[in-house]
């Protein structure tokens, strides 16, 4: 899958952002919350690559630091939602009786838009990174459940499952070694999409002012602060926005790439692929 340019590009973008945000304090002395009222709303320059905000803080540094929260929230939410969704989806898909109970709960939750659900939860729990993760994880798992369940239903009736049963394998073994590996690709793909959607959702919550504490730089918080300056200082909103767009785009491309690459047949063939032009034979 690394042979595709698109996949390489998206992995590159994600790696760059991750490394930049982790090592930010090493290569830059500027603190993201360093306030200098004399430098308010400066346009991008060699000194301040992305310009400065209404408190004179450096937007480049803030955008980089903001990625931390976004990536952590996105990754943890993706893991939590994937885990919950996979377990419930496996159970719902495999056991008929559990199916109706789990799926009714899921249907009920899907009746609300995920963001509204998260909004309500954050409003109730209070806005901290941990609470946002809980809220978003909770809001996103039902979609994963649906996808996993559908995949299980498809695989469940294939003959090798029946063959495994005749060899005396237990349900747990069948679920973990026969079904799960065969439905991994939709799970991983949906996981990357959840990652992307969680970043967007976190930004949206912060933008609405009920997200992460406003003093912590996040892309959503920055956008929220920037909105009143949008005509005066467009760079203030463009760069954090660009951060969101790039990360989400890269994640979505990666998800598509994984989907294409995840066929055991295709993988082998790609390795063997020889470029033989038709003209040679024509």
């Amino acid at each position: 899958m690394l042979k595709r340019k698109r996949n390489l590009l998206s992995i590159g973008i994600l790696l760059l952002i991750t490394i930049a945000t982790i090592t930010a304090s090493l290569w830059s002395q500027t603190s993201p919350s360093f306030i200098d009222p004399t430098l308010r709303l400066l346009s991008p320059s060699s000194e301040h690559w992305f310009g400065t905000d209404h408190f004179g803080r450096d937007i480049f540094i803030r955008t980089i630091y903001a990625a931390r929260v976004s990536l952590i929230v996105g990754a943890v939410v993706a893991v939590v939602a994937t885990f919950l969704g996979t377990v419930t989806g496996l159970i719902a898909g495999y056991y008929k009786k559990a199916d109706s109970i789990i799926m009714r709960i899921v249907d009920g939750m899907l009746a609300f838009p995920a963001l509204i659900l998260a909004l309500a939860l954050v409003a109730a729990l209070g806005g901290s990174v941990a609470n946002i993760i809980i809220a978003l994880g909770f809001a996103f798992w039902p979609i994963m459940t649906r996808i996993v369940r559908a995949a299980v239903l498809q695989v469940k009736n294939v003959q090798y499952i029946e063959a495994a049963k005749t060899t005396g394998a237990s349900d747990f073994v069948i679920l973990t070694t026969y079904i799960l590996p065969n439905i991994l690709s939709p799970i991983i793909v949906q996981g990357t999409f959840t990652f992307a959607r969680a970043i967007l959702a976190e930004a949206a919550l912060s933008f609405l002012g009920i997200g992460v504490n406003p003093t912590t730089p996040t892309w959503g918080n920055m956008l929220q602060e920037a909105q009143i300056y949008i005509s005066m200082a467009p760079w203030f909103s463009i760069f954090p926005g660009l951060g969101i767009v790039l990360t989400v785009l890269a994640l979505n491309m990666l998800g598509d790439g994984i989907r294409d690459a995840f066929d055991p047949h295709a993988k082998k063939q790609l390795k063997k692929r020889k470029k033989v032009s038709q003209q040679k034979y024509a």
Partner: protein
Amino acid sequence: MSQELLRIQDLEMHFPIKEGVLQKTTGYVKAVNGVSLSVNKGETLGIVGESGCGKSTLAKTILGLLKPTSGDIFYEGESILNYNAKQMHELRRNIQMVFQDPFSSLNPRMQVGDIIAAPLKVYKTTKNVKHRVQELMELVGLKPEYYHRLPHEFSGGQRQRIGIARAIALEPKLIVCDEPVSALDVSVQAQVINLLEDLQKELGLTYIFIAHDLSVIKHMADRVGVMYLGKVMELSNNESFYQNAQHPYTNALLSAIPLPDPVKEKERERIVLKGDLPSPANPPSGCVFHTRCPRAQDYCKKNVPLLETKEDGTAHTVACFFPIEHAEQIQK
């Protein structure tokens, strides 16, 4: 006298048909509708029938994958239907299955070695699993070097060998083969059939061999049973079955098989059955075959012919009121 390994008695397997919003049961598909058969140790019982005759359902019931509606199955004289989970687990070691489709019966993400090792790991029969797997691979004619390959790297015939290795891994007594060669190319079919026969001799296996192809069964089976709409129509030893088929349905089946011999093919008389198989949800009254039978009379519409069970398992029995007599056979 040979010893009985498995006996099926008056087995019925009816699947409910559910309709409407409330999933109300509106009828039953009578997939297996009163089947009695027995298999002796070391023999091959061939079961033939067209699609929808219930032969695969019968196989699944024997393996305990389906719970029959009524009737009983005896393994070595013991009824297995009321076995608890532990007894069932023990039984599964002794009854294994080879599946029809060599492509969907192997987990595409597992290495060949692991596929064959799966039953060994469940039952922990041996410490040196890898050694045993390689032994099995050699036994079925696969190179042990292929241990780490994935199923899609093999051709249909080789995949069926993998399936056979998995089935014999636990040294079972009975193997149910559900159309094991019908998805394979002709040139490979013979390889797999011969392999199954060799294994039978070597390991003392008993087979229930299910197929739609009477010619394959002729080469394989000691005894042959013909099924139609969930019932056994005729049951006999191999020679008598092919030389002296008495049921009109068996005769039609035999004559419908095209011979790879143009002259014989043009000379012989063919019985082409009219119409299609009736729905197993709504089988005809009386003899289920009467709607397509060239010999049917009014009597057949009202009365159900029974397959007489005789003490001697090798006897030729037929469920028909007007079977084709031996004299007619010779005339033909």
